[in-house]
């Protein structure tokens, strides 16, 4: 199979389609691989109902956890732990979070914060069988 033989298998439309698809795919890497900003945060704690926080509404939220009250601060589309009754303060040190899909948590206080771009969470994570 020589090269000219291979090229002759492509019609003009095939060639255009090939390069158009390739360009589209390259664009899709840029589009889908950039991190999307989150608009909401879902805060879960065993001590209270899940809390749905709008990240465009700068506010301080106090969330009751297993050990006590953790404080979450919302500012400029970002969220972070500012206080927590845990020992190592890893949650506070993890700093601001703003990307969709990001998760932060205070494990000792059993509070998790999941950032999402959707206004509601789906009823399930995944279905596999």
């Amino acid at each position: 199979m020589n090269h000219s033989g291979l090229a002759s298998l492509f019609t003009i439309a095939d060639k255009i389609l090939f390069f158009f698809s390739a360009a589209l795919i390259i664009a899709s890497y840029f589009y889908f691989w950039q991190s999307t900003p989150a608009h909401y945060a879902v805060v879960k704690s065993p001590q209270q109902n899940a809390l749905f926080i709008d990240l465009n509404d700068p506010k301080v939220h106090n969330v009751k956890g297993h050990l006590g009250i953790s404080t979450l601060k919302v500012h400029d589309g970002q969220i972070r732990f500012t206080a927590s009754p845990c020992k190592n303060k890893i949650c506070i040190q993890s700093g601001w979070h703003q990307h969709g899909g990001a998760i932060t948590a205070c494990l000792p206080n059993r509070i998790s914060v999941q950032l999402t771009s959707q206004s509601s969470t789906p009823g399930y994570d995944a279905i596999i069988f």
Partner: protein
Amino acid sequence: MPLSSNIQKNLNRISLGHKDQLIAGFAALAITIHLLESTLPSPIPGIKPGLANLVTLYVLIRHGWSLALNVSLIRVIAASLLLGSFLSPTFAMSLAGAVASLAVLGLAWICPGKPFGPIGLSILAAMAHISAQVITAYLLFIPHASLFTLLPILLTAALISGTFGGILVSKILERTHDLTDT
């Protein structure tokens, strides 16, 4: 026995035409390839060479869209029954992929002047196939936006496998050119 004679009468009324034989033969071939392909290991979920779809493409070019539709749908249903995945997520995604690629192939096939050769058709089918599968997975099984992070990789694989598949079908068409009806 009136009942059995009735059945016999109805059976006699079913006549297998040449088209039916073609559909049966190509569907059997496609099912075999589908089963063999399902045993291949895959580095990333969703990436497969898509060899079973090449049968659909070959049938489309040699025998037209309606025959390709029959072969493709019979393949999806029969292969899923044999693999035990009938009505499972795998089946739903397989069916969505097949329907989407058939639809795109149908549109490309009625394009005035038929500008696309086997390679173009194969690329179109592969891209439609994987896009439909990702959308189905998102809508039904994994409703998480992160799923689309996989899309560029899957589309890249679809372009590569579609191109090679098209080249393969071109070669097969060349070699079976003399056969009036396979």
